[in-house]
């Protein structure tokens, strides 16, 4: 503020201006904190290790705490009622719950506060399960002390919590579906039938995804080509769906309600903007190529299941194959990929049966570790394969199959050579078998598509350690991302059978429709705020923000020049100040950390609130005569 001072606000606070302003707005005179503390047993999860009664007693002695209670499951109907009732009966204006994790349970407790007429941001969560009973289960006494310290910190912060407001935003009733395979087409179709417009974005020139490369489909030998063609026709006939093929997403802006995707279309040779309220990720997966394993890559008689399938569909196989050996779990459940490929056993069975039916004289051996045919229909499929004469031989990873001799015949029909053999130890016979092969087919797992990580970065969603997209919760939110408004289905999530992928796609459409059906949504109240009078537009916050939530606007200010005798009086100046988009801001506080003038305030995690927690942490209750006890 070189040489001038702003007129508004009249008094510029010298230190921690944010907390002063907030205190003025939130807590009027006589509105002292009245804190209720609720400590959860979580069944055995907490009470099995911590002394909950002692925690209740120590919470009761803390400043501003007017009530401390325990309950078996605070998240149950009874537990929530306990909170609601206590707010009313004891006039609580802050609530602290010490239980499990805010990740799953904070919204629930906040809603209970809301329902009792308390602003949801006057709620404080203390995690004494994950941070105490679970990690220190072998030392309950010290874990109890740590829980007591954490509760004391939570109470100290709660006393300074301020009510926050949430912003509302209109929802654009349109979806962008990324990936035009069976999953993407199914999701798009369902959303269109619900009346929402959909843009379906496919990287390849044609719709259909990996199913296009298949011959027939288990369990009923449906023609893959016919199924895909019917689905493509349905999508093309749907007026609500706009299809962009040869198109890739190159940038994503915005957030739930108003995403803007930049799509590079090779067809139109231009970048197209796609606007959508939600995004569905259906980018699929692809077969892993086992370079160098069992001679793959240099022995033409060694191919993958997908390559076999392509040859089956084009008829490009020698008619007189005498022996085909399939090896399962190639590059799966090993150092390459620790996971099971889920679909490969069924694929092998299907192709083995097609070979066997086409030429019953052909020996087909499947070498497996565990046959992964779960559920009601797949087990039957396994039985059918055995009835057809497909031979299944189990191997263990400590004695994997071995390929010896020369190559098989399939690659070179003109000059037959002695066939190669696969050696495998059969534990049932207790002997090593030498199986000659004309064709060796390797079953490899599906892996994420190239570009999945880049897409994840654009959407700001995570991938797992294998590169598959990571959902919000493995059990109960399999089709959602943690980021609102983005959904997931098909093999982009995890290798899936086609019927599973279709089910997930319908499911993702339903999840997306829960947003699109609403006219507007609300942001969180925990977003950064700018004290404009302190902002000097240095843009450091924008550099720090990972979510693109900060933009700069010109504002006019009336200023009074105090130090220039010649030009005394009010004058209007234009200044550049930061502004936060509450729909994009995740409340992480990175901006507040880098702001040199403390103009950026991380609501709900203000300096004063955090300092209070630190003070409470260092404040060992003298009456108890213990060491700090924090583990």
């Amino acid at each position, binding site marked *: 503020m070189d040489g001038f001072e702003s007129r508004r606000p009249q008094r510029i606070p010298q230190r921690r201006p944010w907390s002063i302003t907030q205190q003025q707005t939130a807590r009027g005179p006589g509105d002292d904190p009245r804190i209720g503390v609720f400590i959860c047993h979580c069944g055995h999860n907490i009470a099995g290790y911590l002394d909950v009664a002692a925690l209740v007693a120590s919470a009761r002695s803390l400043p501003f705490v007017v009530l401390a209670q325990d309950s078996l499951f605070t998240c149950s*109907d009874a537990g929530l009622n306990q909170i609601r009732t206590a707010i009313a009966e004891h006039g609580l204006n802050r609530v602290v719950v010490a239980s499990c994790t805010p990740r799953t*349970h904070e919204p629930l407790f906040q809603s209970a506060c809301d329902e009792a007429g308390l602003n949801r941001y006057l709620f404080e969560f203390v995690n004494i399960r994950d941070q105490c009973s679970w990690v220190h289960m072998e030392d309950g006494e010290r874990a109890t002390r740590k829980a007591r310290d954490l509760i004391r910190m939570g109470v100290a912060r709660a006393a300074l919590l301020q009510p926050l407001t949430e912003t509302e935003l209109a929802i654009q009733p349109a979806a962008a579906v990324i990936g035009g395979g069976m999953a993407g087409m199914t999701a798009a179709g369902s959303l269109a039938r619900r009346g929402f417009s959909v843009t379906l974005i496919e990287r390849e020139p044609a719709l259909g995804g990996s199913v296009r490369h298949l011959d027939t489909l288990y369990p009923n030998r449906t023609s893959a080509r016919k199924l895909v063609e019917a689905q493509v026709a349905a999508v093309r006939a749907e007026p609500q769906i706009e299809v962009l093929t040869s198109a890739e997403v190159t940038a994503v802006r915005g957030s739930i309600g108003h995403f803007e995707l930049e799509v590079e279309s090779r067809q139109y040779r231009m970048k197209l903007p796609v606007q959508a309220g939600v995004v569905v990720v259906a980018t699929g997966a692809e077969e892993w190529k086992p370079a160098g394993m069992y001679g793959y890559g240099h022995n033409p008689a060694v191919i993958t299941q997908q390559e076999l399938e392509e040859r089956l569909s084009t008829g490009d196989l020698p008619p007189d194959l005498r022996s085909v050996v399939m090896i399962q779990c190639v590059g799966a459940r090993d150092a390459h990929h620790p996971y099971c490929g889920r679909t490969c056993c069924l694929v092998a069975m299907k192709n083995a049966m097609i070979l066997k039916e086409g030429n019953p004289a052909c020996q087909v051996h499947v070498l497996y570790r565990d046959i992964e045919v779960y559920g009601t*229909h797949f087990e039957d499929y396994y039985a059918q394969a055995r009835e057809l004469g497909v031979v299944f031989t189990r191997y263990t990873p400590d004695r994997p199959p071995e390929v010896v001799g020369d190559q098989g015949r399939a690659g070179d029909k003109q000059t037959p050579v002695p066939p190669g053999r696969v050696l495998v130890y059969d534990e049932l016979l207790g002997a090593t078998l030498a199986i000659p092969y004309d064709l060796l087919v390797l079953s490899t797992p599906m892996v994420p598509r190239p570009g999945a990580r880049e897409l994840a970065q654009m959407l700001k969603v995570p991938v797992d350690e294998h590169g598959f997209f990571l959902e919000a919760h493995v059990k109960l939110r399999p089709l959602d991302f943690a980021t609102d408004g983005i959904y997931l289905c098909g093999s982009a999530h995890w290798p899936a059978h086609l019927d*599973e992928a279709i*089910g997930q796609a319908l499911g993702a459409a339903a999840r997306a429709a829960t947003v699109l*059906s609403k006219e507007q949504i609300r942001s969180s109240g925990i977003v950064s705020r700018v004290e404009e009078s302190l902002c000097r537009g240095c843009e450091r916050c924008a550099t720090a923000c990972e979510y693109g939530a900060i933009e700069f606007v010109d504002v006019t200010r009336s200023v009074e020049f105090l130090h220039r005798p010649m030009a005394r009086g009010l004058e209007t100046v234009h200044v550049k100040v930061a502004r936060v988009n509450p729909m994009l801001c995740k409340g992480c506080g990175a901006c507040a950390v880098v702001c040199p003038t403390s103009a950026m305030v991380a609501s709900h995690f203000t300096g004063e609130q955090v300092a209070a927690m630190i003070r409470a942490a260092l404040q060992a209750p003298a009456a108890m005569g213990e060491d700090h006890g924090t583990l």
Partner: protein
Amino acid sequence: MNEVLVIGAGIAGIQAALDLAEQGLRVHLVERLPSIGGRMAQLDKTFPTNDCSTCILAPKMVDCSRHPNIVPHTYSEVEAVEGEAGQFDVRVRKRARYVDETRCTGCGECASKCPRKVPDAFNLGLSQRRAIYLYFPQAVPMVMTIDPEQCTYLQRGKCGLCAQVCEAGAIDFEQQDLLLDLCVDAIVVATGFDFYNPAPLTQYGYQRYPNVITALEYERLISASGPTGGHLLRPSDGQPAKKIGFIQCTGSRHVRHNRYCSTVCCVHAIKEATLAWEHDHDADSYVFYTDLRGSGKGFREYMDRAGRAYGVTYVHGRVAQIFELGPGSDSAGETHKPVIRYEDATTGRVAEMAVDLAVLATSLVPAHDAPLLAGILGIDMDEYGFVKTEPFSPADTSRPGIVACGCCLGPADIPQSVAQASAAAARAAEIAWELVRPRHREKG
């Protein structure tokens, strides 16, 4: 407002109801039992994250009960369905609880005074409840129910202690079943599964040997809210179980029982074995398997970790027989020790192993009243008695307007059931939606 009926309020029904309600449809959620929650409520933890089952389920149950678009009808059954997609007339019988739901606070004072003790169905008879009871501690709605078969007052006109102690005045011995007539656009079937009763597998001695239990019984034993408060104790003598054998494919993949694979049992057993280790690091578990199946996200790593670090040994081989050591044959003088006789497939030899507890991974089978419900709904079942769907339209049953999800379609794990539930919600919403808004035929 358009309405949808969801039958069954386990995790699949709950998810379907929430997805429909969040799309602005009004949902009638019918559950046969006194509380929503289903099988998942009986589990202690869930694989592969070992999340506490109640902790992740309870919020969804509460969401369901609080949602302005969801009307839960607990302790109710569908009796008749007529009409077609877009207009199904449904009759629901809301059974008498003999407790006024609007007055009962679930305080449990009545149950503490009720003199009549009966086996607790939620704990599979491993503990006792009273004739007036809360189905389980986190029940939604938190309302007591009187078991009319067991209540002395309802049977013989004597007692009535519960009514005397109830301060809310909620006991109503005169309460009658209520018949509700609903009109809905679509129906979601989410009626779940039962576990196979392994008694016909006489070679395993279930119900003959006290320390041979089923996987679900084990789940209740190790659950904090279960009959032993989460301590893994042998039913015969209440001593801690240190060595546990898990017998896979009990009734599954079996030509004389259930031909199919029950999908979840391998990882389920491994989770139970992991929990034994969590409770007691000296516990050793042995999983006797046919194929060790687990291809869901993170499952194989979970199984490998259990084998590496959590005292779980995998034994490839089917168990032929379980018998008990005779008295005095054990040096420690222990009785009722199950001995597992199995063929070790890696050596080809028959071997025996004495354990403290033998846990049978019983098949997932269609719910016992599935044929009855299929008749009422007029939908086809598959050869095993699960609801039939076509492979590439996984939510649609044979009758238009009726969709299905979860284990009524066949064995499925929780993420599969949840995804299927959302899929069923999508199809049901499409049906309901087509009726309120004409399709846009013109582009733009």
